[in-house]
Structure formats: C-alpha cells, structure tokens
C-alpha cells in the first residue's frame, strides 16, 4: 500500500474536522478525494504531508509513519497545496531549483531535472517571466512541476484545477494524468466530472466522516436507479395532463422544458401522450445517475 490512513481524527478547538477516517491507496492508483467545502479534504492532505499533526489515528506513506518518520515520508511525497502558494518574486527556473535544493537535489542533477520538468509541463515559452507575471494556468504548471520534480512516489494535489478556465482545466488534468501514470495520485476536488474523467476510485467525505470509498461504477450502481428525462416542447403544455403518466415521480418546469423523474423509462408513454395531445417534442434526453447525484445524496 502506498498510503494507509486509519482512524484519522483532527480536532480544531471544539470542532471535529476529521472523525476516524480510514482508507488505503494502492500504488499506481489515481484516487479522487471528494467532498463539499470544509469536509476535511485539505486537513487530511495536510496531515499526510506532515504539515499538521493528527489528534488520533495513524497515517503512513510508502511505509513511513508521517509523524515518527516524517522526513522519510516527506521525501516520497510531491505536494501541491490548496491555492497553489508560490514565491511570486522568483523566476520559474529559480523557483524550481530552490524546490529541488529543498529536496536535497543540487548541482547538475538539479539542472537536468528542472529542465526536463520544464519541458514536460510546457513552461519553455514563459521562462523569462517572474512567477507573478504568469497566468493562473501557468502558475499551476509551475506548482505541479515543483511538486513532481523529485519524482515522488505519491502525489498529493489539493484542488489542482480550481479557479482555472475550462481549457486550462483540461490541460492540467491531462498533465496530471500523463505525469501521474506510474505514481500514486490523491487529488481533491469538488467537481464531480473531474473525478469521473480521471479516477479509478473515489472517496467521499462529509463533515469529517468517510461516506463512500469505492470504484465509480459501483457507487453509481449502489444508488437507487432513477431515470431523469429532460423534454423540450414547442408549446406550453398542460402540466396536469402530463402528470397523469404512469411511474412519474416528480416534474420540474423551466419554460417549455420539463425535467421529469420517473422510476422507469417512460419515453414511450410520453411520446404516445404527446401524440394524442398534439404536443410537439423538440428534444428528449434520458440521464442515468451521475456521480453528482451520488455526491449530493451522500453529503446532504
């Protein structure tokens, strides 16, 4: 196991930020760490990286306890903190060399690693700039480059894509996927699609407690099956007639578009009804449970 967390508890003052969280991450696994804001995602990561101590429980990285063998554990970790703090008055290369020297990499080796990281993260064009002159996306690349410089076995990324524009989000995701290929990656987010796009497994925590820990498909299966049909009509329709449909649970109106929840696939019945009533259907779209629903139902 790359990362083992058992019974982790953290108390801030009187508030329990983490309450007996346990999970394990296998080598090479990409784990999505999901939860609403303030659920304890960052706290878990801060404990794993040795920034904060826990009040109870244990955590180890690559077999090293994060408290008693902190230095060894830290060497195995590449960490990108939340909001990506950087020394903004430094130049990119200067900052990366500084990060390398903190990891104990100096001289020629440091230069080589920095050069290869710069080309991997696509920072070549920006090299002449100070970090504070970079766009947010490029700053994120610098943060990632610094985190991955020493080729760590475990990458811990705290909301690596938050605050980026959609293109940058895709770029950073691809970067993480590519560089994290043979590494254990734990990354936190509150964007569901991100987890669906990147992870094998997902952990959801809420109010400091673990509420789900499973492969994404399994989580979706666990949920009670529900069909959500989004239908757009050309004209205003009579809602009362619509609600006579069998198996219908709930309807939501938004202009001429209706979101219909049902316990079965009711597309056929709806078409027949529309034909009878002379309603013109412009579009119809059936959704199954998305991870977003899983998330909402688990963290409510």
């Amino acid at each position, binding site marked *: 196991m790359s990362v083992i967390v058992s019974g982790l508890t953290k108390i801030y003052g009187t508030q329990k930020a983490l309450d007996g969280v346990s999970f394990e991450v296998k080598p090479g696994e990409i784990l999505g760490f999901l939860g609403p804001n303030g659920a304890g995602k960052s706290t878990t990561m801060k404990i794993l990286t040795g920034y904060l101590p826990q009040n109870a429980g244990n955590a180890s990285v690559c077999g090293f306890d994060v408290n008693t063998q902190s230095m060894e554990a830290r060497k195995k970790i590449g*960490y990108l*903190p939340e909001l990506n*703090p950087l*020394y903004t008055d430094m130049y990119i290369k*200067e900052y990366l060399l*500084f990060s390398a020297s903190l990891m*104990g990499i100096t001289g020629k080796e440091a230069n080589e690693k920095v050069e290869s990281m710069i080309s991997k993260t696509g920072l070549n064009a920006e090299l002449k700039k100070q970090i504070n002159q970079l766009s947010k996306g490029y700053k994120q690349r610098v943060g990632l480059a610094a985190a991955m410089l020493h080729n760590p076995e475990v990458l811990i990324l705290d909301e690596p894509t938050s605050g980026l524009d959609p293109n940058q989000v895709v770029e950073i995701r691809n970067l993480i996927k590519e560089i994290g290929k043979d590494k254990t990656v734990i990354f936190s987010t509150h964007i569901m699609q991100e987890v669906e796009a990147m992870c094998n497994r997902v952990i959801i925590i809420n109010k400091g407690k673990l509420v789900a820990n499973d492969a994404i498909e399994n989580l979706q299966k666990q949920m009670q099956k529900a069909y959500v049909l989004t239908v757009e009509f050309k004209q205003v329709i009579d809602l009362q007639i619509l609600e006579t449909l069998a198996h219908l649970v709930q309807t939501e109106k938004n202009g001429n578009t209706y979101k219909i929840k049902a316990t079965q696939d009711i597309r056929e019945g709806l078409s027949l009804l529309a034909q009878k009533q002379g309603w013109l259907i412009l579009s119809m779209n059936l959704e199954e449970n998305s991870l977003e629903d899983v998330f909402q139902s688990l963290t409510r």
Partner: protein
Amino acid sequence: MLSIYIKEIRSFLSSLIAYVVMLVFLLAIGLFTWVLPDYNVFDYGYANLDTLFSMAPWLFIFLISAITMRSLSEEKRNGTIEIITTKPISDLQIILGKYFAGLTLVLFTLLPTLIYYVSIYQLGAPVGNLDSGAIWGSYIGLFFLSSCFVAVGMFASAISENQIVSFVVSMFLCFLFYNLFELIADFKLLGTWDSAVAGLGINAHYESMSRGVIDSRDLIYFIGFDVVFIAATKTLFGGRKW
C-alpha cells in the same frame, strides 16, 4: 538550511531590501561620523569611532526589524509556509537559514565602515594613534548585538502574519532588551539587584566588549540570548502543531 539561506539572500538582493538597508545605514552613520555638527570626528577632536558605535545600535533597532519583519510572517501570509514545511527539512533548519541570512546582511552592512577605521587611523596625530583593541572589541560587540536583534526580529516575525505588527513588536523588544533594563536599573529602586537587572540588557554587555575585552560572560550572554530567542521562534513557528 543552506537552500533556505541562499534563497533568503537572493530575495534580499532582488527586493531592494538589502540595498536600502545598507544605504540608509551607511548614509546615517556617515553623516553622524563625518558631517553633522557636535557628533563628527573633527569637532570631537578624538581619534576614535565612538559615534559609530553609539549610533549603530539605535539604527539597527529600526533596520534589523525591517529586515526580519517579513521573514516568517510573509511565508504564513502567502501560504508558502506549507511548501517549505512539507519538504524534508526541519522547522529549525528553516529558521536558522533565515536567521543566518539576516545576520549576513547585517555583517555586509557593517563591513564598509571599516573604511572609517582606516581613515581615522590615518587622521590620528601621530598616525595610528587610536585604541585598536577597543575598536575591534566594539565591532565584535556590535556584531553580537546585531545577532541578538536578528533573533528578536525572527521571533517577532513568527508572532503575526502581519509584517507591520512584526516590525513594531520587534522594535519594541529590541529597545527593551537593548536599553530599557538599564534605564530601569537607573531608578535605583532594587538595591543590590540593580546591577543584575542592568545585566539583563544587551547594552551592559555591549559596553563591556567595547572596552576591548572579550569576556566569556558576555559571549555566553549573547549566544544564550540568540539560543533562547531562536528556540522561542521555533516554538511559535511550530504553533500550527499545537
């Protein structure tokens, strides 16, 4: 430790702090020593550097506080503390790296004043008629005094995320330890304890070194002072772990 040290030195050089501190110090000391009436060497008529050694601690109260105020507080404010404290170096190494960087800057601020020593050496009648022992003792004393101020400044910087708070606290603590204990002793309220209270202050030991005698008691005081404040800084800096 070395990587933090180098990073701090580079940031002093790239952020103008180093130049401004050196410029202001040398300008002020130069004016007092050579130009301003009453204080300058020519009016004074003695071949010594007393003006430099009596003014420098007061300037250092401001300047060293300005050098150190950002060292830890800025790391906390920007969140970069999370970057350096999750790397395989200890908190003490971080603090010592920053401490020695500050001390180096102070040392390089003092170095150019050696020109004054040479000038006054030449100006003496006859040439070389000055108390070199006392001057070297004063330089060493001033260096140790600066090391205390840097340690106090680091401590103040660990108190707050706000640089202004750190700056003001540092100035107050430097003043307290430099002079205030001696002033309290001057009230002569404590009988035999007066000299002990004065001995708590930096100035008593600085003056003792200025006479050109390197007394082990003074050395122990200065080094002990640094150790205590660095330990206190480490405790505060590790405050996230409480």
